[in-house]
């Protein structure tokens, strides 16, 4: 199964995302921000983390208007899976594909820390069969989700702490259909026992199963 890994100028995690896709048994195909179509044979899309366009204007704001996002939107509307991680989550919120927005962390500073996540909705293709708490690192400056948790489909919450100051300790949300999901923590950095945790593999595997 081929997972398109989207790359904007300033994207940082495309290599580790592609490595995680391969660890889950899939193939990763690069998708460049100026492309207007996803790579041939794309089954699922992964928008990895980083500082696309240097976070200029607002994190994710410029990337959400780049040519490749038209193709991502069509893929999502056709029911294809799209996962946004960190800056990818910010891009999906800025695109309107996911509800809410990501605000500056309550500490007003960058936070890099191993966190634990509760799975609050196991009904999406991403979270089916997942059991928390998952040990996964979070690392961002603007990762406090803001939105209405009574209408948004909240799939992941921080367990035991709310490190970024998100509304309701929300760590990840999905669209109503469940085929588009975003989260601030980095599951692609928790797929190798050498680095301390493999709890991120489940979320990445969902893309490969698509």
């Amino acid at each position, binding site marked *: 199964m081929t997972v398109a890994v989207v790359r904007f*100028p*300033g994207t*940082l*995690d495309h*290599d*580790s995302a592609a*490595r*995680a896709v391969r660890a889950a048994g899939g193939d990763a195909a690069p998708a460049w921000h100026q492309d207007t179509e996803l790579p041939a044979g794309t089954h699922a899309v992964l928008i990895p983390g*980083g*500082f696309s*366009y*240097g*976070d*200029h204007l607002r994190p994710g704001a410029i990337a959400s208007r780049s040519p490749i996002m038209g193709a991502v939107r069509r893929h999502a509307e056709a029911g294809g899976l799209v996962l946004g991680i960190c800056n990818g989550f910010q891009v999906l919120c800025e695109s309107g594909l996911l509800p809410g927005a990501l605000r500056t962390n309550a500490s007003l*500073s*960058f*936070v*890099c*820390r191993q966190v634990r996540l509760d799975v609050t909705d196991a009904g999406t293709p991403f979270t089916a069969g997942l059991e928390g708490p998952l040990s996964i*690192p979070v*690392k961002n*400056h603007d990762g406090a989700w803001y939105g209405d948790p009574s209408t948004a489909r909240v799939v992941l919450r921080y367990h035991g702490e709310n490190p970024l100051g998100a509304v309701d300790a929300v760590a990840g949300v999905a669209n109503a259909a469940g085929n588009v999901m975003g989260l601030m923590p*980095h599951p*692609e*950095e928790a797929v*190798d026992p*050498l*680095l301390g945790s493999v709890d991120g593999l489940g979320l990445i595997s969902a893309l490969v199963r698509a």
Partner: protein
Amino acid sequence: MSEQPLHRQLGLTDAENDRIPELIGRPPTDPELVMFSLMWSEHCSYKHSKPLLRRFPTTGPHVVQGPGENAGAVDVGDGWAVALKVESHNHPSAVEPFEGAATGVGGIVRDILALGAKPIALLDSLRFGTLDSARSRHLFTRAVEGIGHYGNCIGIPTVGGEVLFDDRYEDSCLVNAMCVGMVRTDGILKAAARTPGNHLVLIGNRTGKDGIGGASVLASAELSEDDADKRPSVQVSDPFTERKLMDCCLELAAAGAFAALQDLGAAGLTSAASEMAAKGGVGLLIELDRIPLREEGMAPAEILVSESQERMLAEVTAERLDEVLAVCERWELLATVIGTVTDTGNFTAVHRGATVVDIPASALTDDAPVYGVPIDPAPAAEPLDLDAIPAPADLSAAWLELLARPTLASKRWVYERYDHLVGANTIRRPGGDAAVVRLPGMDRAIAITTDCAERHCEVEPLGGGMATVLEAARNLACTGARPLAATDCLNFGNPEKGATGWRLERVIEGMSQALEALGVPVVSGNVSLYNESPGRVIYPTPVVGMIGLLEDPAASVGHAFQEAGDTVVLIGSGTPRLDASEWLGRAEGLPPTPDVAAEVALVEFLIAAAGKGLLRSAHDCSGGGIAVALAESAMAGGVGCEVNLPAGRRADEDLFGEGGGRVVATCHPADLPALRALAGDVPLAAIGTVGGSTVDARVGERDASVAIVRARDAHEGAIPAALA
């Protein structure tokens, strides 16, 4: 100031000014004089330190790039080399800590990039005044934010470093940044321009008025009270462009599209281009009108010495030019042909049809003046009179107090502001003896550390130089890594005053002796002098960055206690002393001179024991002595221990004393005989057992104890509390 002749305003001595016409056969033009003033500054020419630096061992069978290029590199097998360098950005950070520290990171990254190497890790070695000073709190917090801002955005993990707080850095803070990268041994790029006729391509940001004269104004003179006037000398950071520059240059380097590559750092285009020409034995013709400017009306001298960031200069053949320009365009980076390589040997610059600079490139580089420094010894230090130091009545309370000293306290507040994981190769995270980073694409890892024994260097620089190198090697060996190469940043005061020159010479001698004993070459480095104000000189601060190789990344050892029931062992020799220790809190006394041979044997033993899987944890006893080492291992593992420590002169010295190469390790009880057998002549004593929720130490007839939960509160809470 305005009454002074131009050369003095620029920082040139009268003798240096007289030398220029002798070299070029006529009086210099104004732009030429400005270029000489920058290139002959201490920061660019090392004119006061060069003769002393020759003492360092710099060769070895695995050295593929020694000192003299933008960074050094060593072979790590399978056709790969690891590049490393540490550099200071002290003076800019004292004036504007956020941009000063941020651009320090940017500069060291480009030094690694100039070799064609992919940066894979950053470390930062920081020194500030104590946190009861509002100025020091400001410098510390803003420098950390600047480092995070830049490092996080360019996607290189900041995996380690150190922070020390002491009055002696109140006026002159230190911000040293180290970068490590990976490059194919057959793909290492050089700075030397090769072939007349080739194009010079400037890639990256526009050239502006920021950083004009940074090397001479800031980096080569003492700071005074009117530092605000110097703010225009500090550069402005743009990490997004740096990331694109990195992605673009690595793509082009891998394709073999560059004939040579140079980073624009101190003294900007002047330094980059003159070194390119002088090293290649060729000349360069630069058309200043082609250089994209940020503002109109810049004078030729300003264009030539601007330190605008995120710029690289490449030599490109005619055949590869279109490819280079196309790849830069895809990365949305400016790339401009600004001149050509010539056969004249001259640095020539034309501006609006007129030749404004035409001088031998080597006059700027090779003909820079070299000065000896006065070697006036400081009075010999005396060992501490222990009777004059009050002994703490309550050892347990003293232990907790020590854990909460900002210098020894947890640096979580710092490293959680840095992305230490990006790239998904960080095996051992900050907080331990050394970071361990997997080499991407290889089944190997490297351990990386920065260290310095600055108080020891102050009271006895020869031993302090040794101790600095030995601590770095011990930190690497605690993870199981074999020390491979070093880079150094020598931060000192004004070498023309007092005993500073002598201390510089002695520190280099001590470092060199230890490096030779370890078989570790220095492959790159940097010198930062004049770190003093009218009232204060910094400690001699020779920051050493060292890397070590781990053949099996999965076999690395951490500092955390693993399991109740494990045996605690004290390995190594040396008598703990309070002289110049963190417990004493000042540079007084005379620590014993390190036993270099014994320490090398300890390093070898640790590597062998880790390789055989005999160690479950290992932690160096450094600042705060064995008490702090035990508490840190317990906090990291979430399990305590009960130990019986060898009794010396006094219990507080036994617990908190420093010096000597000593390591607290743990092993499975069944492995103890094998560990003893492997130790041979290296002293090894079983001192207790892992378990419980407290760290209990018996020293002679006295007991001391800290609960892990209270130790953690003290250790983790200290820096946030000091900043609140």
